[in-house]
């Protein structure tokens, strides 16, 4: 789904407590329809980059260095009003229920859904002084599949999915998803508690499209994952804690989690992280301004401020995820020196390695496949 903050256990708590918020989101219920034509025109109008109120910020918990917030507040004399979500679905439900925020951070798939549904405001990159360091250096984001010409988004982080493992217990791996079937790790293998990520293992093993929803493809995927099931110890998105506390010998993991783990591991050399040659799912979180943001000017200012080189560096070091900003590459390379495969390069950013939105029927079919895999 999305990357983790350094204090991942807190994110896991949030995930695990998602149902606590169920009642709240259900109250909003996300039944509102797409905005009207006048609303759409307003959302397309260019926004001045200027303070027009406090910043109402909505993101995963702990996903920006607090010092960066403090600097922004001090420099522009605005307050940052923070709230957090525990899933993309929860974030979308709050937006649909009419809660108003100035800035949100959808993943690629959700950026597409929200912009297609008229939920995001157009962003004129020409007005952002620091945007050139992104779009001038990372061609991919100049016209990504999820938001043509990045009209409503600016990329924030990048990450990919691979396998984290205990080198001290298993030695070297082969660089394939087959490693999850490694006999030495039997009974101590975790996969992420995430539908798309887990189905992707089966799809990549068979060379199928990452987010296939064809019934016969899904049958092959579930058959493969069923053969993995007896070897599994659990479905958990708490990858690095599972490795650190000895519950896992091997786990499917997001690259940023592994980078964040380096800060906590006493001896990083006992751990490893690899991406599989069959393919590594890749993703990106984006800055986006909701169509009904009360203070879009401040939000634009905040994006520009976040893209300043010193703030990019601070945030990379704080959350452990690389950012597509020119000049930040060395900072990340130094951070993940023991796990070089955490890098996300231009070659990794392939359209076919992103999770895509499906039709309602397709999503249902994938959902049923996931139940099949999870419930056994």
């Amino acid at each position, binding site marked *: 789904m999305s990357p983790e903050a350094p204090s991942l*256990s807190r994110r*896991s*708590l949030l995930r*695990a*407590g*998602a*149902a*606590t918020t*169920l*009642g709240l*989101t*259900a*109250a909003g*219920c*996300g*039944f*509102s329809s797409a905005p009207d034509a006048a609303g759409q025109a307003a959302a397309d109008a260019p926004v001045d980059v200027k303070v027009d109120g406090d910043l109402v910020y909505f993101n995963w918990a702990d996903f920006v260095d607090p010092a960066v917030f403090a600097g922004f507040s001090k420099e522009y004399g605005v307050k940052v009003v923070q709230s957090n979500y525990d*899933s993309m*679905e*929860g974030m*979308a439900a709050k937006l*649909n229920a009419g809660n108003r925020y100035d800035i949100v951070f959808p993943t690629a798939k959700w950026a597409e*859904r929200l912009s*297609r*549904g008229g939920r995001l405001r157009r962003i004129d990159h020409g007005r952002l002084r620091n945007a050139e360091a992104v779009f001038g250096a990372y061609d991919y984001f100049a016209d990504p599949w999820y938001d043509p010409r990045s009209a409503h988004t600016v990329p924030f982080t990048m990450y990919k999915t691979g396998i984290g493992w205990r080198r001290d217990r298993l030695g070297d791996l082969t660089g394939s998803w087959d490693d999850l079937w490694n006999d030495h790790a039997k009974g101590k293998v975790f996969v992420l*508690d*995430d*539908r798309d990520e887990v189905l992707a293992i089966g799809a990549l093993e068979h060379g199928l499209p990452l987010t296939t929803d064809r019934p016969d493809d899904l049958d092959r995927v579930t058959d493969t994952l069923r053969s993995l*099931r007896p070897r*599994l*110890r*659990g*479905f*958990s998105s708490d990858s690095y804690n599972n490795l650190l*506390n*000895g*519950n896992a010998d091997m786990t499917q993991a997001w690259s940023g989690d592994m980078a964040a783990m380096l800060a906590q591991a006493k001896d990083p050399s006992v751990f490893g992280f690899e991406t599989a040659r069959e393919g590594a799912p890749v993703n990106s979180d984006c800055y986006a301004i909701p169509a009904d943001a009360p203070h879009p000017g401040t939000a634009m200012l905040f994006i520009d401020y976040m893209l300043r080189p010193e703030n990019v560096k601070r945030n990379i070091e704080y959350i452990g995820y690389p950012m597509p900003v020119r000049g930040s590459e060395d900072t990340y390379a130094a951070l993940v020196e023991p796990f070089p495969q955490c890098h996300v390069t231009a070659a990794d950013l392939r359209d076919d390695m992103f999770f895509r939105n499906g*039709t*309602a029927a397709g*999503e*249902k079919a*994938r*959902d*049923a496949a*996931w*139940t*099949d895999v*999870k*419930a*056994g």
Partner: protein
Amino acid sequence: MATTARPPRAAGKAARERLWTWLMLPGTLWMTVFLLASLILVATLAFGTTDPLGNPRFGFVLDNITALADPAYRTVLLRSLGYALVTCAVCLLIAYPVAYAIATSGGRYKNVLIAAIVVPFFANYLVRMYGWSVVLSDDGPLLRALRAIGLADGGTRILQTGTGVVAGLVYGFVVFMIIPLYAAMERMDTSLIEAGRDLYAGPLRTFLFVTVPATRQGAAAGCVLVLLPAMGDFVSVQLMGGPDQIMIGNLIQDKFFQGQNWPLGSALTMLLMAVLLLGMLGYLRRTRKDEAEAVR
């Protein structure tokens, strides 16, 4: 004046009735709006669909109801019921001696002892369960200690086993068993225990044939209070279970938060509620029978 025509006692009664009506109003409104309305929402959404943006839409399709025929749901539902029943049994075993000891020998410390049991439960359930999962982890303090004294070997595990899940559920809900049992024991006529002793029954016999029957209503209330949340729990499995322990609460959570399939999640919620309702009806029938016997 009109009121002077009414006898004063009747007027007082009417005023009291009005007062009770007013006092009941906030609670009734609250339940109507937040409980009934959300129930109706979930029930109707079970027949709904999902739009291309993933938003739920009301409608009238039976897809979600027919999807419940998938054998996976039956397996998971039965498993959840099994875990909830085992949890109830373990909670009873733990709660009876605790409640008995406090009620009979607590003396002036009774309230303090009850507070000592209840206060830790003020901390967020999730945080406590997370802490519990750390304690039970492979390299955690409990298994390290057991290994040190030779009661466990390198392959012994608690997390990601049924034991781990039941441990989590018991830890989470045992207080709901202790409190009603304690209340029942407080109300119990202790001369019954003395009578049992007078008739040469030993402590165990007295406990089993005098105390347990006399407090069965408290036990039944405790079982309902434990069974209901344990059936729908998903945190315990998420933190302490493995693939073979998935419960119905986890699947419902997935439908709402991963598949964005709120209609199917709603249908599953209704299925769970139907099962729980059966248990609840059984409990109500039992208590009504007990009350009728007591009156007679």
